[in-house]
């Protein structure tokens, strides 16, 4: 019996010659990650048990991105814990505000995650890096503290579910719509404990940004990880990272893994993407996915375009295409958040920032901010937002009576213009 890409990567990192789903393994990790919410707890535990040294100062990333630029004094003190730890242990990949970006966009951009890697992060959306053909998964602060010390992590080898996408995507449909549709199909625990492997001819043509958006939301189906087999698009992306000024220092060897043709899957789901139109997930679960045209008039107070799901340059380009020479409705707060400084700069050079500002939107510094109800766009009582973020739980973006509808950037931009959730073709 053959192995899935996930099993092969894990096998290579735990030194075993064979493994099967359900096995507990102790694996070497290539990178571990913490942010301003999760790292302070990890650092406290690290120090509490008397650890003095990190396993490798070059394989730890500390990114203060959730409540930054510091929203209040408590957040400032949390961030101080990170910066002090980074300085004490000479952590190479600590990125202060000014170089900081949303972690799951920043690390791939810097070439810090490569195909074949095992990456853990104390953030549930760490599964994003599966887009590169890496095994990556989110966990908590104690696991991160342990990884700081050992450079290793325990895993239960997951079963894999194969998701096959076939056909040509409709206009305005992207990776976000595919994943919302998929979560709608299997439910918020439909992939519990499993690796979600995305494949099919649609995926083979999909851009890296779209692949990141898909793998990013594997956790919203309960998945342990999301993964796409690396191909020419992946390799081109990796090479482009090494060509960048910030990424060239991170060049290192890596390995491309692919699933065997006789690998065993727990389930296989197939989708004809021609039938998928832009999706919107209604409150209060990401699995409440419906075609945007099926929604009755939903008035909105806010539109958020950004996050680790959809704050990449191609997302901003799509939004700008719709907002160009148009105005957002005067009652709608439209907040655009480039996920990294590089994306912000690219958006500026390409004239996207000007388009956003002309349209009446505001452009923010990189931050997770409103996605988790942190800052920079909190909703008041009864308010409604459409957002390109990843969760629409009760109170996620603010008041417990507020509502979040999840969508792709085109829908979020069109909705900002209309003042209600709208199909991009309507504007």
């Amino acid at each position: 019996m053959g192995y899935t890409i996930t099993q092969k990567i894990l096998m290579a990192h735990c030194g075993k010659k064979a493994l099967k789903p359900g096995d507990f393994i102790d694996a070497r990790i290539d990178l571990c990650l913490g942010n301003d919410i999760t790292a302070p707890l990890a650092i406290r535990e690290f120090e509490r048990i008397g650890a003095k040294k990190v396993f490798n100062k070059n394989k730890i990333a500390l990114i203060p991105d959730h409540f930054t630029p510091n929203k209040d004094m408590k957040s400032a003190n949390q961030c101080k814990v990170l910066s002090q730890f980074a300085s004490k242990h000479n952590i190479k990949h600590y990125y202060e505000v000014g170089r900081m970006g949303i972690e799951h966009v920043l690390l791939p951009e810097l070439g810090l995650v490569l195909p074949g890697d095992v990456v853990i992060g104390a953030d549930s959306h760490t599964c994003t890096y599966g887009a590169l053909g890496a095994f990556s998964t989110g966990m908590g602060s104690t696991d991160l503290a342990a990884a700081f010390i050992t450079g290793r992590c325990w895993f239960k080898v997951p079963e894999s579910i194969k998701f096959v996408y076939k056909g040509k995507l409709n206009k305005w449909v992207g990776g976000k719509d595919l994943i919302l549709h998929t979560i709608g199909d299997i439910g918020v625990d439909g992939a519990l404990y499993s690796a979600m492997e995305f494949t099919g001819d649609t995926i083979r043509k999909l851009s890296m940004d779209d692949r990141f958006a898909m793998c990013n939301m594997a956790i919203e189906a309960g998945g342990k990880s999301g993964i796409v087999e690396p191909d020419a698009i992946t390799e081109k992306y990796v090479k482009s990272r090494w060509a960048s000024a910030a990424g060239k220092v991170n060049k290192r060897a890596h390995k491309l893994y692919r699933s065997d043709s006789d690998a065993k899957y727990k389930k296989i789901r197939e989708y004809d993407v021609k039938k998928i139109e832009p999706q919107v997930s209604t409150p209060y679960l990401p699995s409440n996915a419906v075609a945007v045209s099926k929604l009755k008039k939903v008035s909105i107070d806010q539109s958020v375009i950004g996050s680790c799901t959809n704050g990449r340059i191609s997302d901003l380009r799509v939004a700008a295409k719709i907002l160009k020479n148009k105005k957002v409705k005067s009652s709608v707060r439209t907040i655009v958040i480039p996920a990294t400084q590089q994306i912000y700069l690219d958006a500026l050079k390409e004239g996207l920032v000007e388009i956003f500002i002309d349209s009446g939107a505001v452009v923010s510094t990189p931050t997770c901010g409103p996605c988790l109800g942190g800052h920079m766009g909190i909703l008041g009582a009864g308010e409604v937002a459409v957002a390109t973020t990843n969760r629409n739980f009760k109170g996620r973006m603010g008041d417990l009576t507020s509502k979040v509808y999840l969508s792709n950037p085109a829908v979020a931009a069109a909705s900002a213009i209309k003042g209600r959730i709208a199909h991009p073709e309507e504007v």
Partner: protein
Amino acid sequence: MKANGKAFKFGKNINTDEIIPAKYLNTTDAKELASHCMEGIIGNDFAKKVKGGDIIVAGRNFGCGSSREHAPYSIKSAGVSCVIAESFARIFYRNSINIGLPILESKTAARGIKEGDKIEVDFTKGEIRNVTKGKVYRSQSFPAFMEKIIKAGGLLKMIQDSYL
């Protein structure tokens, strides 16, 4: 190891934003996190009502959403002695084992227990006793590897001997 207390009942897909809303994540203080436990559920005054030893009973996929360890930590800090659910979201499950918050998977218990029932748990036997209703439910046993972490008193205690 045993636990006993009153049951607080919750539904399915209880997410970590409901357990501890993100606005409280700018602290790691146990008392403060405990005082906001379950505050993301409208009309819930769990944090005020819960007494040391009490038990949370919930449906499927308890603890889904973010990786915030503040969620099991706030539950543990509120004095909850055990969480029983039909199933747990992966990261919450892992975090609970790692920090020593006892959790048990049992469909029959999760469905049979009602709000306010008096519950006794025998972890060694994997037995959940509903004293109010006079019923006994079985829980799933832990894989041996996890037993090892639990017995050591958490993940960091387990690695302490080999690495520090």
